[in-house]
């Protein structure tokens, strides 16, 4: 990887960190439970992208396996909250 690719990747990492900080603000001050769950979903999806970027810069493929399991767990968490709100669990 040359310098242009590395600088573009670091700029995009900083932008993704800023996006996750803004989402965390919504997670802290969301008025209801639904807003917090939405912010949690966006946080996990953003951290999927960030973990893929870290796997590329560290050059370790094992982080992608962690990424797959993390996405699966976030999906199951949101589905369980939805089923709990419908009181049919």
């Amino acid at each position: 990887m040359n310098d242009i690719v590395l600088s573009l990747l670091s700029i995009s990492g900083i932008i993704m960190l800023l996006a996750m900080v803004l989402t965390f603000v919504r997670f802290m001050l969301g008025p209801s439970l639904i807003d917090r769950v939405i912010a949690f979903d966006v946080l996990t999806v953003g951290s999927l992208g960030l973990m893929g970027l870290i796997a590329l810069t560290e050059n370790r493929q094992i982080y992608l396996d962690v990424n797959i399991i993390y996405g699966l767990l976030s999906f199951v968490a949101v589905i369980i909250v939805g089923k709990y709100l419908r009181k049919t669990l």
Partner: protein
Amino acid sequence: MEYLQITGAVMVLLGAIVLLIAAIGLLRMPDSYLRVQVGTKASTAGVALIMLGLALIMPSWFGKLFIILLFVMMTNPLSSNVLMRAAHRNGHPMSSKTVVDQLAEDEKTT
């Protein structure tokens, strides 16, 4: 080869900007329904762009990156649909500017 890597890096940058737009939309929207619409669509598009860009930079990782991309594009709309349908059934309040609620009309007729 080098142009392919630069194209991938630009795609990762575009995906990061789309994620930033999703976060700003989450902060600015007045209502939970509008928030889930902004958050789900924009974050799915952002992760898709990031994974495709990473696959262009490192082509030997294409399999796992494509699995993550396919998984996110299958599960993210499904989970937000389940969550907001449960919230609508519980009578979660809408914004005062909402003019039409087609899900309530459908449930009334059937």
